[in-house]
């Protein structure tokens, strides 16, 4: 295995484009090293992106959003007061990934590129409307987060392409988000179901909403029907019931070692309801 330490994304893309065997990028390494240890992946080339300047930075964009470097670990996001204030749902999703130790290494970008439908940080990013910058041999492009995963373990990135940053939009006023997941233990599990809700209020009424469901389909789902169920409402019982039904309808899960299809469908509704309430309270400035 060749271990590369490029100092720019352009170089990283060039190396990636030139490889012929199995290639992996290394950010936090919390997935790649596990796969190597298990013998699932034996990379011929491993490109460590952490020598590229700026990858460990979180910076505010001119419009008030946030640009997050691809090697910023969860523990740094969790300790970033500005980010936590704007996007608590995004941060809590990331902070649910693995242990304290894993938080010291794991990154949003890695969690996204691992391509797992159960990735805890992805629903929050999608609900937030986050985008990623993709750098390839011939330049960069900006795509929404939901366009990255292609199915379990797969992404839509082309050969030679690498994500060079994640951008969260400006939170703006009267917004709130939340991510909840269901796991059998209290920690250390892969989500059986995950749900993120991001919304904006006008007074007591929801005027914008995005709802993302994890672990209930081959990729994280951005559900229009869930959003429609609560937009224009005060999140009263009828709206919550409609949201529950919409989430159950949107979920298209399978049964596997972590949960049954029926269980996932039902819990998708439960989590959507609970996450919406928390996001609603956060948008209203209530502590939750």
């Amino acid at each position, binding site marked *: 295995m060749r271990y590369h330490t490029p100092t720019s994304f352009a170089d990283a893309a060039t190396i990636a484009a030139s490889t012929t065997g199995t290639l992996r990028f290394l950010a936090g390494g919390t997935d790649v090293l596990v796969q190597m240890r298990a013998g699932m992946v034996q990379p011929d080339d491993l490109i460590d992106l952490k020598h590229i300047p700026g990858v460990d930075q979180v910076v505010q964009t001119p419009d008030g959003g946030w640009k997050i470097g691809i090697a910023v670990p969860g523990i740094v996001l969790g300790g970033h007061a500005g980010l936590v204030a704007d996007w608590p749902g995004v941060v809590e999703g990331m902070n649910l990934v693995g242990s304290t130790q894993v938080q010291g290494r794991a990154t949003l970008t890695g969690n996204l590129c691992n391509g797992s439908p159960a990735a805890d940080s992805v629903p929050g990013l999608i609900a937030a409307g986050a985008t990623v910058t993709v750098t390839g041999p011939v330049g960069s492009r900006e795509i929404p987060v939901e366009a990255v995963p292609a199915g379990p373990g797969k992404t839509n990135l082309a050969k030679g392409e690498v994500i060079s940053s994640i951008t969260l939009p400006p939170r703006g006023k009267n917004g709130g988000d939340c991510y909840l997941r*269901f796991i*059998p233990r209290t920690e250390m599990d892969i989500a059986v179901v995950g749900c993120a809700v991001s919304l904006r209020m006008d007074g007591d009424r929801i005027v914008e909403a995005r709802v993302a469901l994890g672990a209930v389909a081959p990729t994280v789902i951005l559900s229009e029907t869930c959003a429609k169920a609560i937009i224009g409402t005060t999140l009263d019982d009828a709206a919550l019931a409609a949201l529950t039904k919409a989430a159950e309808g949107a979920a298209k899960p399978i049964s596997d*070692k972590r949960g049954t299809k029926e269980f996932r469908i039902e819990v998708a509704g439960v989590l959507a309801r609970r996450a919406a309430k928390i996001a609603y309270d956060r948008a209203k400035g209530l502590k939750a």
Partner: protein
Amino acid sequence: MARDDVKTGYKLIGTRPNRPDGLDKVTGRARYGADFSLPGMLHAAVVRSPHAHARIVKIDASKALALDGVKAVVTRADLPTGLTGEDLNLQDNTLAGERALYDGHAVAAVAATSALLAQDAARLIEVTYEVLPHVTDVDTAMAPGAPIIREGVADYSVPEGMHGNVARYMEFGHGDVEAGFAAADIVREHTYKTEATHQGYIEPHACVGQMGEDGRGEMWVCTQGHWYIRRMSAAVLGIDAANLRVTPSEIGGGFGGKTTIFMEPLSLALSRKAGGRPVKLVMSRSEVLRATGPTASASMDVKLGMKKDGTITAGQVFFRMQGGAFVGMSPIGEALPCAFACYDIPALKHEAVEVIANRPKAAAYRAPGSPMAAFAVESLVDEMCRELKLDPIEVRLKNGATNGSKSSYGPVYNVIGLKETLEAAKDHPNYSAPLGPNQGRGVASGFWFNHGGETSVTLAVGEDGTATVMIGTPDIGGSRASIGLMVAETLGIPYENVRVNVVETGALGVNEPTHGSRATFASGKAAVEAARQAMAEMCRRAAADWGIDPEAVEWKDGAAHPAGPNAGKFPPMTIGEIGSKMGSTGGPISGHHEVTAEGVGASFGTHVVDVEVDPETGRTTILRYLVVQDAGTAIHPAYVEGQYQGGAAQGIGWALNEEYVYGADGRLQNPIFLDYRIPVASDLPMIDTVIVEVPNPGHPYGVRGVGETGITPPLPAVASAIAGATGARIRSLPCSPPKVLAAIKANRA
């Protein structure tokens, strides 16, 4: 109430001094199985079957051997033939013969100059398989038409006409069961299932083996019993046990799973083929989960008769237990006697079959068989208590075994503490704590026989009056401290002046492993006897010095004293004085005791657990947990509490989330701690403990052994608490959220 506060007349027993190995263990200096390295050492890797059942057509290692740095490959063809019985079982499991019998079954091993190279080489060993039909579930294996996995391995006990996957059969009982059921007000009957779980010790199996051209070898290994490792490895390799010297490392947990061999002989076989270079073999976690001893999975029918006042009139069980693809590995012989061990019931019938399936060779796991049996019987007792609106502790007090009761399996209980644990549980504040919505309380009792076993201990008095004790039972949870306390108490010297060492196979007679809750009981008992021998010899030395009869000398407070006024007036001669001049008074002073330790005291415990269940997701949270158990005497109460708490935590894991999940392809789907979900710190509350002390008359200090019983009650107690919280009874472990949610919904409908 800890024993510290109880007046016993003991100076040291019941105190909580620091353990002697504590310093090494908090500084990283303690050496575990994988921490040994030797000059010239090679590293090994094992090739494992990806199939649940397959004929091994061909093994081609030529590509692996062609790599620079690869020094040896071993397959079954390198092992001797002609073994029988359990020796053959061990050899068959060490390396597959004609067939791979489970996902993860070892097929070949390779040694190379680095671990990474050995893993590369293992991937280059080409094995051609012919896949055969498989079965992994215990009930499916018993179904008509199930593939017969091991034709002809059934032992003498199986009557003609039983299913071809039945390997052993057992039946016993007493009284007229039918009359008992007829006398009952209600008779209930259900089937309960438990999935296989793994001991889950955090240290993977590891060893370094070295074996030269002369057939003599050495091994450093993490094990609960190095004489077992020696005997089993020698048998598998066809060498004499005396040619093998086995040194135990510190051990990172065992819980029964390190009482046997899995891959250890391979390090020796590879070493021999690699010209005698030492070979280190360390399992990965997935190898541990796929190929080392899980416990059995069980399917159990239970029938009970109860009168309205709670009197149990009769009981009947039929257990089906699967212990892998090898005969003799399921704990039916333990589970059946444990089933009703807590009760005194006039009529009982016990029946069980061992079922062969394509799963790894089961090993002992903490009170083997007892947790499953308790789940079945204690769950049904609880169901009937709820139906009749009876207090579960009162019902157990009414029917519980007590001193002089004839046990459900034959012997008469001597002095036991079951009722004391029930009374203490009833009096504990947890039992009357108020419960909120969606909360429930479960109670269950549990039993373990405890074990004595082959034991050999030597004690040597030092020139400065200290004592060195050589024991053969590896210290997993503080037994060096407890044995040191007993020896110091016996000799009347400070705890700090006693050093207890776990020594290698060349230094003592044969010892059974640290299993069956026996280390503090049996090695402790033998150490006390050895100390008494040394004391007698020191009294003789003092007598000779004083010129009086040895009978006229007594030992107390660490010194020889003239016994009574007629013996003469001499100042006490301390162990230090005697030790300092032992060279001139007859030579070194030591004591030695070896015995198959009898006199074990049966162990009983009662647990009370409160849970809260999320009615929308079926997720269970443990709110409070209480363990009450009879220790006999708690030598070092902190480590007794630790055993109670650890057993409870393992039982909670078994009850809630731990399980072996096999796919339709017969492969283990969760061989990783991510998905084999043992409890993490945030899953548990503090675990309250009450140490009941009903001393065991069969031990000089009343020890019963405390290691195993604690894992038994949590399975039924948690399920019963969930039933209390939700009204839904889970009869198939684990009580995982999907199952609990489905049961809640079914109950509502």
